């Protein structure tokens, strides 16, 4: 548990899942489980004391929903990375969580390595994106982006990268195909996420004004 360990917090209402996850993460080299919360409310109240780098959050929480919790946590701490945990693919909710600022998602049935990899990747600033999320992002920008003022649209390159992702290409393959470095591709994806996030906040703001 050196100072370089990734500080992870878990928000999960199922006690067994929570404790097992905490145990697995705590045991792994380079990770430290600094807090576990059984609800979104608890997480919002107690997180500042623990200062996690990455929050692993169940999408299906009692009380305030995982999506809402992401929104509030992100507005309190924009730098925090959040990975959503889902039981099965609930594409709409996952997408909404991503819009609210989550950096990725995981199926609960993933292996321990899978979970640790995902945490590590978002902590490094990566923006893991699956082909179907990419498709959803393109879709959502295409449908609404043009009509709303004040909402930044995706750039040509960002759209290209997304298209490749949605076709099943890896970051490395995209880099090759577009003549970029893999790091640049990742940069585009981060930009996409932040635009998505900004857009959702702007939309919310517009709604409030009305």
């Amino acid at each position, binding site marked *: 548990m050196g100072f370089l360990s990734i500080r992870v917090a878990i928000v999960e209402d199922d006690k067994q899942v929570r404790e097992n996850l905490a145990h697995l993460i705590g045991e792994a080299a380079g990770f430290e489980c600094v807090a576990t919360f059984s609800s979104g409310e608890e997480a919002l109240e107690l997180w500042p004391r623990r200062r996690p780098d990455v929050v692993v959050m169940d999408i299906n929480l009692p009380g305030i929903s995982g999506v809402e919790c992401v929104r509030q946590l992100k507005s309190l701490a924009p730098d925090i990375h959040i990975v959503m945990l889902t039981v*099965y693919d609930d594409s709409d909710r996952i997408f909404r969580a991503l819009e609210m600022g989550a950096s990725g998602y995981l199926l609960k049935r993933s292996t321990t390595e899978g979970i640790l990899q995902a945490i590590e990747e978002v902590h490094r600033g990566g923006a893991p994106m*699956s*082909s179907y999320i990419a498709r959803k992002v393109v879709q959502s920008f295409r449908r609404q982006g043009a009509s709303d003022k004040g909402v930044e649209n995706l750039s040509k390159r960002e759209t290209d990268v997304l298209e490749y992702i*949605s076709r*099943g290409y890896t970051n490395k393959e995209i880099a090759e195909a577009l003549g970029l470095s893999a790091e640049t591709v990742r940069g585009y994806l981060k930009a996409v996420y932040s635009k998505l996030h900004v857009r959702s906040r702007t939309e919310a703001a517009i709604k409030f004004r009305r």
Partner: protein
Amino acid sequence: MGCLAGSWLPEIAVRMWMESCLRREFPALAYASLKPVTQLIFTLALVLAAFSLPTAAALREPVHPRRNVEEFAPVEAKFLRFTIRATNRGEPCLDELEVYAAEGLARNVALAANGARAQASGSMQGYGIHQLEGINDGRYGNGRSWIADRIDGAWVQIEFPLPTRINKVVWGRDREGNFIDRLATQYEIQVATDTNIWRTVASSADREPLPAEAKSISGASITRSLVNRFAPVGTTLSVEAGQASSDYRIDVWQTADGLPGNTITAIEQTSDGYLWIGTLNGLARFDGLRFQVFGEASELPNTRVLCLLAGREGTLWIGTEGGGLIGLRDGRSRSLTRLDGLRSDTVTTLAQDRSGQVWAGTPAGLSCWREDKFVQPTALGPPSGSSILVTCVDGSNTLWAVADNQLLTRSSEGPLAKPRGFDPSSFSSVLAAEAGRSGQLWFGGVNGYIGAVSNETVRVYREQPGQLLEAIWALRETRNGDLWAGTANGGLRRLRHGHFTSLTTQEGLSDNSVRCLFEDSEGSLWVGTAGGGLNRVKPRKLTTFTTRDGLAHNVVMSLAEDLEGTLWIGSNCGGLSARRNGVLAPYYANYLLDNECIWSLLSGRDGSLWAGTWGGGLFQMRGREVKNFPVARPGNDEPVVALCEDGHGGLWMGTMQGGLKSFRDGNVSDAQPSKGKPVHPVTALVQEAREGLWVGTSGGGLQLLERGRLTTFGRRDGLPSDFIRALHRDANGVLWIGTGGGLARMQEGKIASFTRSQGLPDEVISQILEDDRTNLWFGCNQGIFRVAAREFEAIAGGKASRVNAISYGRAEGMESLECTGGFYPAGLKTRDGNLWFSTVKGLVMVDPHNISVNEKPPPVVVEQVLTDGMEVPMANTAGSALEFGPGVQRVEFRFTALSLVAPERNRFKHRLDGLEKDWVEAETQRVAAYPHLPPGRYIFRVKACNNDGVWNEAGASIRFSVRPHFWQSRWFDASALIVFLGVGGLMVRLTAVRRLRRKLQRVLEQHSVEQERTRIARDIHDELGANLTRIALLTEVGQKHRHKPEEVSANLSQISVTAREAVRAMDAIVWAVNPRNDSLDNFANYVSQFAEEFFRPTSIRCRLDIPADLPEHPLSTETRHHLFLAVKEALHNVVQHSSASEVWLRLRMDEGELKINIADNGKGIAASFGQGGGHDGLVNIRRRIEDLGGSFDLKSDPSSGTSLLLHLPLPKTGKAWGS
């Protein structure tokens, strides 16, 4: 044994000693070579020697960690003490100390449940699982055992509730055989009538010492194999026969299951078939599955029910505490209290005589309800104020009552008086009375007896030693003549032929405090307890033998019956057991057989017992002589899973990896007939009449080996699967074939197959047996089922479409539903006609001659009708038709069948006259729903069968009509014609007709959706169920191996893989059923995710081409599901057969057609697809797509790979289901 009187040396020890003399000092051969006369003299000499030798010379076997028996001459004892002087390692541990009564039924009197108390010199601190109560709680295993706080001088003592004559002690260190340390090696067992004078009845002094390797053991080396290095104890084991536990099955319901309260005061059954349960928290109606509670919220003002009576006129009478008497009839209630002339508002007991008078006993005397009013109490005596506890009316219409704890009676019109012929005051403290069918009047109370009054005389049944009869709270005589007594604290006692047997929490009763008893119309005994809820006690149809009953290990693999009638039972690595003269015991032949994984058994004609093992080769046992033959190579030998004699003194052996082998004169040779072809495990072997051998394989179908020629039968020949699990050749030479996908019958070369669609409850057929009445019995993964052979005949001849399979499972006494399969023979019919099935939890016996059939057709009731989710009141509509308003969307019927033996086995069929022509097989579903019914008149009919498949053909029916909208009515048609008489009117009518037609179409479609749901339910069961079972088994294996870290870790990773697989399967099912996913877009999302995940672990790159914006298209659950399965199958093919490096999944909407293209750059496939064999996948895809109304194109080229195009026309409208 006269000269041994006074000595404890049992006969059995002498016999063993003699055997050991014969074995050791005088080799069998030498003995056999003596002349018969010499043999006789020799034997006599030995016997005399045995009798004249001092007892110490004949040593008993060494102590065994699992189980030791100490037998001694009967001795009276109030206390029994077990003192330990030394162990093999650590403080001593005792797993259950059992002490048996010498008289009556052998019964463990040391049980805490029977009132015995335990005391000890001290218990080890810090271990919850090793506390003193573990010594006599009736539960086996290290987890429920006692460990002392010291070694030398540690003792544990049992105090019996009464001085009892005992003659046997059974003890062990771990009855489950997992631990061998902490074993008492030097000990003494003493008894006393008071704690000052102790007398030794048994000790270790006459036992052989432990074998050397078992003496010094370290914690790490505690393994099963070492456990069995201990000397044999099998021959002296005996399981106490006649235990009630194996005769009855008990099911329990408590508040968590819907009961209003756990203290049951009364149970009654009304003529409509419902069971009524009175509790201190309210009244409930029970149909065997669901409780319908009548409590404070309903019409019953008082919820404390004390007694119930189903009146002859159809009224349910409810006696309450403080709320008077309530009559409930046709859903209406009437309350009677002191204001109406009742003696008290608390009614403790109810009875009805032949004239219909209802007798209500209260704490303030007796009331009689006659012709709608209470009779003046003065005529009834005894003095008002007597507390009446029980009333009952006997066969001669005489009223009996227990008043102030005395038995009184009333003949004709007189008052209650003392009965004639005996003095009731000698039987004070009476608490219960019951008028028996046989004319006897039973009574019992606190003094440990049961009295039976008959012809003015009393016969008294007193408790027997070890049969403590406590205060009796309830008595009930059942139809078969048994008398059941419910006691205040000691559970149930059954009195049969003057003998008592007990049924307590040890046998599964929920509580030992029995408050009331009732026998229902099908012969189940219902037991209401104070605090433990409701119990149903029914005779087991099947007998299950587990380790509790003397089996060595619960996972049974193989069976054989030898020439002497001994049944041999091979287990999965838990050794061999034998059942001889009704006594089942582990056969510790470890020094004979050094492998415990007995996967196949065979009793040879020459008297040998052959055992095929996993990894230890083949064993031949003849008496105590054992030979071992390697099958492949020593050390890691080929598992032998099937055995069969070849008719020439040799054997056929089916092996796991080496196929068929032949064994003759000690030599094993390869008999695999098909050289060069893949070798499949050989799982079953049956001899054909003339020199032929049927070989069942796992994956390679069925083979017939005849004079060196081999014929193979597989799926293409009509077998339901190529994975054969069982074979049976019946008396007529018909071969029955059990497979992993159904049953097949081969008769004169023709194969007929039977699956679920023909009514089989399960398709994994692992064992096939035939009883003496031409019924076939099958062991499957869902228990056991029985079908008359002629029913298969009828189907094969086209005369019937389904068989009537009678299922047997947990309700009938199985502990696990999974029958062992893939080993032969796993099921066996013994010469006495009994059928034996091996399961993963015990050995199951069926006595087909004595199996009772429930002949009573169950009453069928439609309990509720709902329209659009709202209940339709039905209380006062008997006979008249219901009428629903126009526009009703959905009509739902909820029904039940009142057979309470095994309600989960009641099956239903229903039909809606006016819509359906054929009966719908609803199986066990108790609800039927009809969406969008067009206007018209209908009759909903439902019929049901009981657990034994006996149908109530009359069933129940409900008439109803759906009123039309005004534009749907004839009246409107007419007026429209009159008013418009032209084009306008005609158009309206045409629209109406079209609308109706569409509606009808929709109803049919909805019905197919419901079928789809049934299928999905099966998916859940098959996919999730299989994985969860696997996990459960893996966990058990893991526990077994808990001392081997590598194996545990391998086990755990397998569990984790399986669990993830289960979750994945669940995800797929959840996705399939969730109507929120009924859109094209969602389908595209799911498919692309699936593909990504599917190809990730492979070396194939998956490219997706799915437009970001798909048009909004609804996709029905069914379409979506089939389409997905088709795509999945196609992707599977790519991985399995293509050798491609890239695959493309493309999806497009084009001119109202959905196009899905799966293309790869692999080697293409041969053009011969669609003919079965390896291209089943393609056939499936084509069938699925064609069923959906689409089509299928395949292009394949060795140079450019395979491309599969699926076309599916989709409706143009935006909403397919809306209206």
